[in-house]
């Protein structure tokens, strides 16, 4: 929005200044430092970036990260869509139950939830010991320290982030538009596919963007549930920085991740803007 006059500009600046200052000190400056490391450690040059694109280990971690995040995003957004649908359009009781299921985990620390999955799924965890006690399995199933468990843990964390943009998109749908479709003889399935889903598509795009971007930087959940086997980018940065004195490569990976996220956000937000104004199709 344009500022109408200069007198309104200064209060606005004064109100936003603390945030800008905080972001500059807490994010922009440290990030510039990290970016500096990536081209100066151990010596000046683009050597670390050449290593990054040439190192099969680093590339495989990037590929795994994208694969996991893609699956996580699809599963989380799809699940969130179904959950939100019931939350927004369901009965009072359904709404209350879902609110508890969505928001109570939201308030619990990431670490606690990751250990919760571990307690449930590890070799001597609840699931395996009960199944063994019931005689359904002979030896414990390997349910953690693999990609599926990382995905499950991440989906669990990310669903609430997808629910909020989806809910606002679904609440904005005019009930009469759906009634109109019914009155014209459309079945429920038809109304969903040709009216409800297209109308909530901006929410789906928003949810996808948020979940995918968040998931790229996940550290705690994959570190605990992956058990050092399914390493993702954030964990690789950690290993380069703290386990081996390879700060230059760690910094280069961080910069690459930030650039990828920025590019994705630019791309997707443009797509979202197109979908919202309706000039895209």
């Amino acid at each position: 929005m344009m500022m109408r006059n200069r007198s309104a500009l200064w209060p606005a600046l004064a109100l936003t200044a603390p945030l800008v200052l905080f972001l500059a000190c807490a994010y922009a400056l440290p990030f510039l430092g990290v970016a500096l490391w990536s081209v100066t450690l151990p010596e000046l040059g683009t050597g670390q970036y050449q290593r990054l694109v040439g190192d099969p280990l680093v590339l495989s971690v990037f590929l795994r990260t994208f694969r996991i995040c893609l699956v996580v995003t699809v599963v989380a957004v799809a699940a969130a869509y179904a959950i939100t649908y019931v939350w927004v359009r369901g009965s009072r009781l359904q709404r209350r139950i879902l609110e508890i299921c969505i928001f109570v985990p939201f308030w619990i620390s990431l670490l606690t939830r990751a250990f919760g999955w571990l307690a449930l799924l590890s070799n001597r965890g609840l699931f395996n010991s009960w199944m063994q006690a019931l005689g359904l399995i002979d030896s414990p199933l390997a349910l953690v320290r693999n990609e599926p468990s990382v995905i499950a843990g991440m989906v669990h964390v990310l669903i609430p982030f997808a629910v909020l943009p989806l809910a606002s998109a679904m609440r904005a749908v005019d009930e009469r538009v759906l009634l109109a479709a019914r009155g014209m003889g459309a079945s429920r399935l038809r109304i969903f596919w040709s009216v409800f889903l297209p109308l909530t598509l901006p929410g789906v795009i928003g949810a996808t963007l948020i979940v995918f971007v968040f998931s790229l930087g996940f550290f705690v959940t994959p570190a605990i549930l992956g058990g050092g086997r399914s390493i993702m980018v954030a964990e690789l940065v950690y290993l380069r920085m703290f386990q081996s004195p390879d700060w230059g490569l760690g910094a280069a990976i961080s910069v690459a991740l930030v650039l990828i996220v920025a590019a994705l956000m630019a791309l997707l937000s443009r797509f979202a803007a197109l979908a919202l104004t309706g000039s895209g199709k």
Partner: protein
Amino acid sequence: MTTRAVGIQAIGIGKSFGHFEALRDISLDIAPGEFLTLLGPSGSGKTTFLMLLAGFQAASTGRLLSDGIDITNSRAEDRSFGMVFQGYALFPHKSVAQNIAFPLQVRGVGREEIARRVDAIIARVGLVGHEKKRPAMLSGGQQQRVALARALVFEPPVLLLDEPFSALDKHLRGRMQEEVARLHGEFGTTFVFVTHDQSEALSLSSRIAIFNNGRLLQAGAPRDIYERPQSRFVAEFLGEINLLPVAEVGHCSLGTSGLFEGMRLRAPRHEHVGGRAMLAVRPEHMSVSAEPPSEGNGVAARLANTTYLGAAMRLAFATRSGTPLTVTLPSEVAGRVLARGPDVWVTWSFDNGFLLPEQS
């Protein structure tokens, strides 16, 4: 294009939401091809009744017949009545042509046939050149036309309209009313129209059904219902009306008469006799004279106030006992009346008055 219009019969329809009775015992015959208006104040149940006709809500009691076939429990998607919603309810993500094509696609009509019928109806509602636009790019009147085209393109046996003009300005409203009247004539479909605007109801409908507090008070042709309302509510809702309390109501040679300020005022025959009643007269049916009338009714009154309305003037009088009387006269005539001084006789012919039960 002509459509087979159907008649609908509502028999003892009731609808409750919890303890609230939105509709009570509504019985109404809707004739094939007629233009029926459901008129009433907000909360009167008229929209609820329309939603029941559409099948979006189920009746709590009573039955609904369509050409004699029971449709009480059939779903909206199976009834396939056309519907124009308040605010139009167009699909915002579809173009004008896609909006209008939707009901045909749902019915599995072939691609070429859809294109042909969509083009034809776009021409009929005057939207040529706007086919590819989204609803948000159209004016209110154009959106209204899309909504009408979309509701009529599949040639429904009944078209239901829920306050379709409420969002339009007065000028556009008049034009869209003409448009709807023309489409009704051309399609021959049964139109059921909901409004709270009495002048809209009077000018458009072949019949009006008046709702209040969930009850159907009276149904009839606009002229009948305006000139012969059966209750005070209907009389007052359809337009300004003078109500004179009369006593000793009894039959006389010319009809029924009652006593007002010591004079016998006469009206067409009315079955409620004995005791008190209200004699009702529309302001435009009254005139003003210097002398008591030789025939017809007359009441001595004193001018209290005048309001200039352009073509007409509204004159407010009070009778000797203080009963207010309003008379509307052409401005030119009113000017002459005002020149005569404040004490006059307000007169009207017997036929223009009617008696109403005192409490109604």
